[in-house]
């Protein structure tokens, strides 16, 4: 009795599937149905991130912020870099934006030029042995070693 009911159910199920998806195995739906929902859902997630949340690559702002100071740095010369932005990837963004100058994180060993990024600290900072060469007005400043 139970076997008969199962067989009837199976046949009915197959007939329904074949009405909509003629000539395919039922197992195919295991892939087709998730794909039908997941791919558009992923697209809508991206649209939300881009349009609603306005999520943008920080790399773009780094490239823009450091474009001016890059022109003032001699190629291949090492320079020190100090930032008040407490994120370990900050270093990688700045290093990438300022190629071909060679970034040395922190004040040691000290070089003739010092690039400072102070985004959260108001005013112009002072560094012993260095004087301000140029303030780019966007949190980025260039210092040079004071003449002794």
């Amino acid at each position, binding site marked *: 009795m139970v076997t*008969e009911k199962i*067989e*009837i159910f*199976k*046949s009915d199920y*197959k*007939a329904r599937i*074949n*009405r909509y*998806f*003629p*000539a*395919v*195995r*039922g*197992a*195919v739906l*295991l*892939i*087709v149905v*998730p*794909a*039908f929902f*997941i*791919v*558009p859902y*992923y*697209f809508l997630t*991206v*649209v939300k*991130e*881009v349009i609603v949340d306005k*999520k*943008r*690559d920080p*790399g*773009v702002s780094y*490239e823009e912020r450091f474009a001016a100071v890059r022109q003032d740095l001699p*190629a*291949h010369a090492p320079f020190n870099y100090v930032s008040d932005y407490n994120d370990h*990837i900050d270093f*990688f*963004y700045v*290093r*990438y934006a300022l*190629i*071909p100058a*060679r970034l040395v994180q922190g004040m040691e060993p000290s070089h003739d030029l010092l690039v400072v990024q102070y985004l959260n600290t108001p005013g112009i900072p002072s560094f012993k042995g260095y004087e301000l060469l140029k303030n780019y007005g966007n949190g980025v400043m260039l210092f040079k070693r004071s003449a002794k």
Partner: protein
Amino acid sequence: MEILAFIPPILIGSAIVVMIFPKFSLKGAGAVFTVCLGSGIGLGLTSSTIFLWLAWFGRPGAAYRVFEVGSAILLTTIAFYRFHDDTSGSQDEWPADCGTNDVPIKWLKRLCIILLLISAGSFGLKTFIEGSYGTIDTRITWNYRARWLFRGGDQWEHAFYSPVARDAEYEDDKGHAADYPLLVTGSVYRGWEIMGNDHFSIPIIIAGVFTFGTYLLLYASLALLRNQNQGYLAVLFMLVSTQFLHLGTDQYGDVPLAFFILSTVALFALKDRFPAISLQAIVLTGFTASCAAWTKNEGLMFLVLVILVHFIGQIGKNDGSNLLKEFFCFLMGMLPVMGTLLYFKLKFAPRNDMVNIPTLKQTAFHLLDLDRYLIVITEIFKKVYQFNDGIVILLAVYFLISGLDRSGKGKKHILSHVMLLFLMMCGYLFAYMITPYDLRWHIGSSIRRLFIQLWPAWVFLFFYCVRGPEQSAAEDQPGKLSPEGL
């Protein structure tokens, strides 16, 4: 405009494929196969020629452009004549029973195309607007080195300077993976050099070529080996694996490597399926396996394993002279890119951060530590289960319902492909065993990308072996209740 920079590599690569496979290469799924495979091979070849040019003659200028465009025109002309001669001649080297004459299920085809276009939209939005400069790996490895090659002037070799690898200290990751091969870096640099500026669209287009090239290559190879419907189904499954698209948009080097691993496995399957074209397929596997080695260090391991499984492992099983001939063809295909890789590794690359003399003693201790084996194996199983929200379970259920296809020819060799991918996974396990970094951090930060390297090849093998989506005549007709059932 940046797209123009990709015409020569695509022409060069496609022309090489047409010259080797003139009979089928511009028909139906064969055309898709040719263009996808050709794009990958072309990018591999041009990334190595521009690197050699930079190393030998200095900054590539107008002369390099003339050389590249001239090569593209010359190869395309030869390919055209070879194709024309072959199609008009009587020689029939491509078997008639390849799956190019099958009837596609229309709704499956339409769904596949629509979902591919939606995925392309996701890729475009995510790359060009949300994450133009790629993920952190891109900025510290691939594009970092490409920018040094482009902006570095006479000191471009600084791209391969690695304080970490030279001092064997691992507290900081400055100079990350400086010994990595140059397919992605060289292709990005080439695009920038040709366009004259380092715009972010060049690496995005390269990521797009390899991401969508993988989907299309998966479709085309299954269409040639099985039928188009099986190809559509495999692509739909890859689209459900959103991790792959996600890593593609992040511009990781693992996606190009996945492309070359898939190409190599698919070409070996074609070789097994159609013995008449086996030598031509072997030449192309030489190209693709060497391009895998030119992409990432894991690709170098893949190349060694290909030689081990498909050549050394066949000694005694196959005819010796035939095997030697095949290996010679493989070497011929491998030579151009592999030669450049050897030159780079010997002359420019710093020592590897995981395998080097200063850490040899530590490596030996790690290999004898049984706890590490337990941690690595447990983590690998856990991550396989969790990969892309448990997609392997979907695969397992599909297999249980659908079953194995036993009709195809050439599947007796399937075990060697499975063995190849399995050995790759053993290689990953070994790499984790000897890592000088914190083990759990290293596994957690990289295992997802390692799975992605092999994922398209596993999906290809799976759909090559399982039964197709079409109901056979023997199965129940729609809407009819079988008398036995009642």
